[in-house]
């Protein structure tokens, strides 16, 4: 892998919200890079800025500074449509991320159409099968789905444009362990088949251990340490907070 341009480079990223006494410095000079085909984890305290990093990359956090590059190209301030063909995100909150009045068929169909695909009908079918939902769910609305079923629709939507880089925010925390296993296997297969790159937030260290090659530990807006999966398994962390995190999750 060495020598090739990384899929994602994040350098000195600062992200902030609000003004005055309500200003939150959600991410403070974060730097890391993710190789092509790598799966990189983000773990850490609740509220430490993990989702904010993903949101900054996709353009959902307007106030940021630093450098963000995808496949060597700086990300433009205003993300063009072509950006979302390469980079897709699965949101942490499967309830908020689906439009309540759009059926599963419409969500997936429109995403496919937006990205210029033909043969929509077959592709929708395949996407539903890929995420283990099947055709019975095709014409349902979000309120007719359980939490885990919604999350699978959200994953299917992110896969629809066949992106290169997937940003996954707690992709399986709303899923039961068996569906989690199916989704993690699916994500592993997709990565192997299509050379996808993942940046994945999870609070579950065994999920991160299973999926990722490396991970960054965050606390209070900062990346305190970057670990390899071997470090994680052997609980070989230097920073006090990462040690605490590893000890607490046996």
């Amino acid at each position, binding site marked *: 892998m060495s020598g090739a341009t990384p899929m994602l480079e994040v350098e000195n990223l600062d992200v902030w*919200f609000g003004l005055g006494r309500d200003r939150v410095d959600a991410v403070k000079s974060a730097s890391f890079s993710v190789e092509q085909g790598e799966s990189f984890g983000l773990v850490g305290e*609740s509220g430490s800025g993990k989702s904010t990093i993903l949101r900054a990359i996709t353009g959902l956090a307007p106030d940021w500074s630093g450098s963000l590059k995808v496949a060597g190209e700086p990300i433009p301030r205003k993300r063009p449509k072509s950006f979302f063909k390469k980079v897709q995100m699965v949101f*942490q909150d499967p309830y908020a991320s689906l439009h309540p009045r759009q059926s599963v068929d419409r969500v997936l169909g429109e995403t496919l159409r937006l990205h210029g695909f033909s043969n929509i009908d077959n592709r929708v079918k395949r996407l539903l099968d890929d995420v283990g939902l099947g055709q019975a769910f095709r014409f349902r609305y979000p309120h007719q789905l*359980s*939490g885990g*079923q919604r999350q699978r629709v959200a994953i299917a939507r992110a896969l629809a444009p066949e992106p290169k880089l997937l940003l996954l925010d707690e992709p399986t925390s709303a899923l039961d*362990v068996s569906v989690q296993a199916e989704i993690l296997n699916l994500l592993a297969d997709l990565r192997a088949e299509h050379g996808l790159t993942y940046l994945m937030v999870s609070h579950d260290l*065994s999920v991160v251990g*299973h999926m990722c090659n490396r991970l960054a530990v965050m606390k209070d807006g900062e990346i305190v340490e970057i670990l390899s999966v071997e470090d994680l398994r052997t609980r070989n962390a230097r920073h006090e907070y990462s040690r605490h995190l590893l000890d607490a999750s046996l």
Partner: protein
Amino acid sequence: MADPLLDVEDLWVRFPSRHGTFDAVRGVSFTLGRERLGIVGESGSGKSMTGRAILRLIRPPGQVEAKHVLLDGENLLEKSERDMRAVRGQRISMVMQDPKFSLNPVMTIGAQIIEAYRLHSKASKSAAYTKAIEMLEAVSIRDPERVMRAYPHEMSGGMGQRIMIAMMLIPNPEILIADEPTSALDVSVQRQVLDIMDKLVKERGMGLIFISHDLNLVADFCDRVLIMYSGRIVEVCDADKLQEAKHPYTRGLLNSLPHLDAPRERLDVLKREDEWALAPSVSGRI
């Protein structure tokens, strides 16, 4: 055991549609004492619908039916909608699986907590403010003053969950139904939130229904566990015996977990058997 707080018998939740009726919950029976009762099971197995049905929060056309749902001996199914409103939030609180969805998006967090608190107590505004800050600190929110002024969309996933828990605990309910309350929390914050609930069960005799996907967490935290599949209870066990569960479905769930110390190429997935859905629901009554 003393009389249970809650006694549910033969609970059904049905969704009629043009293509026939879908039964999301099929004849579930259990009791809840002053204990931590876990409900686990795969996605779509009817866990949330069971919780919502107790509070009669199933939206039409969905229907709830049961022999009875007794709260301290009173059948909730026979209460008027007005009486139910007094039960909800006051006697039985529910932390919904979709925390941000249950908060009002155009009202600050502070205004919502204070309003919820003053609905149940005659406290002054400033006393309610102090109480709200106290509750936010109790769930490990670091900058409670800022959070009081903020709107729901400005909260992280785990902060939303903790705010909901704080709000639900303020009225001091007899029963708390917590639907995936800690699924977005890192282990250390999760511990703190669990400790709060634990204290309420032990010190105030609250009954807790704890719905979760996290088998290890439930095994560690709860007293008893109901395992649901396809709208039914397929197995009931003591939480500390969950690892020894017998039902092939429960075994399948346990085997699909990734383990840090035993890395595998692929995770086992469940092979569902038709007969699991056909067997009658196991009773979770004591």
